[in-house]
């Protein structure tokens, strides 16, 4: 993974995309069709993630970043920029109900 950079394709990278989407770093409408390509959106999401969590900003899936990702955490998203912020999605649903 350390050697993974933009343009490479590695089986399982889609799982990292799904994680970054789940916590508000990878802005994509659907989370059902992530590819295994290390593309520009993944690199940008990694930079956002590393910067926000105080990691060294490399834009890569380095060991510190992966280690952070496997650390237990709160399920709420990290950023307040994503339009899919689940707290407010639920607020709307609950209000309607």
């Amino acid at each position, binding site marked *: 993974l350390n050697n993974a950079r933009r343009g490479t394709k590695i089986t399982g990278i889609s799982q990292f995309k799904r994680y970054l989407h789940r*916590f508000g770093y990878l802005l994509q409408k659907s989370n059902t069709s992530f590819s295994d390509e290390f593309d520009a959106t993944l690199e940008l999401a990694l930079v956002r993630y590393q910067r*926000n*969590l*105080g990691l060294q900003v490399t834009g890569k899936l380095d060991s510190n970043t992966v280690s*952070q990702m496997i*650390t*237990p*955490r*709160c*399920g*709420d*998203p*990290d950023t*307040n920029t994503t339009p899919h*912020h*689940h*707290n*407010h*999605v*639920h*607020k709307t649903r*609950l209000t309607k109900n």
Partner: protein
Amino acid sequence: FVFFPGKPRWSRSMPMTLTYAFSRENMIHSLSMKEIREAFQRAFTRWASVIPVSFVEVSDFELTDIKIGFYNGEHGDGEPFDGVLGVLAHSFSPEIGRLHLDAAETWAVDFRSTTSEVAVDLESVATHEIGHLLGLSHSSLKEAVMYPSLRPRDKRADLNIDDIKGVQSLYGSNPNFRSEWSLESDMSANQG
């Protein structure tokens, strides 16, 4: 510190009291009810000591402001829990008041008696989640209670200056608040 989009907060007049209750149906049994209640009481007290908001436990789960429960997997809010470790808990922004913990975790209130390597400190997670209920999102500061991750057997329940400044930006300062972090110039009236 970071707020939720739109900076939502509980919109009652100051000083305010919020009630909380535990779900009887969605509870764990690895800890006693007394241990769980005391852990949450300490967590609520930490926040109440810095803002003019107090928290009172009530028994009526339907009518309370804050509803606390332990849930397994899919539990009806579209954010299923994932078993041991991974996601530990989640909660909702003001004024929804729902605080959900993953029932699959090995919740602990005392690491001397809970020896599991995957034990998670209940008080630390409770303190973090109450921060969300009050309107704080995740902080980038690793020392802050509102930092999103917590390793097993770690404890991070003491409010950091980042947490305090964040929540006081929403609710003002508790008039009795004095801490190692504070300066006289930081003391503000309770204008929320």
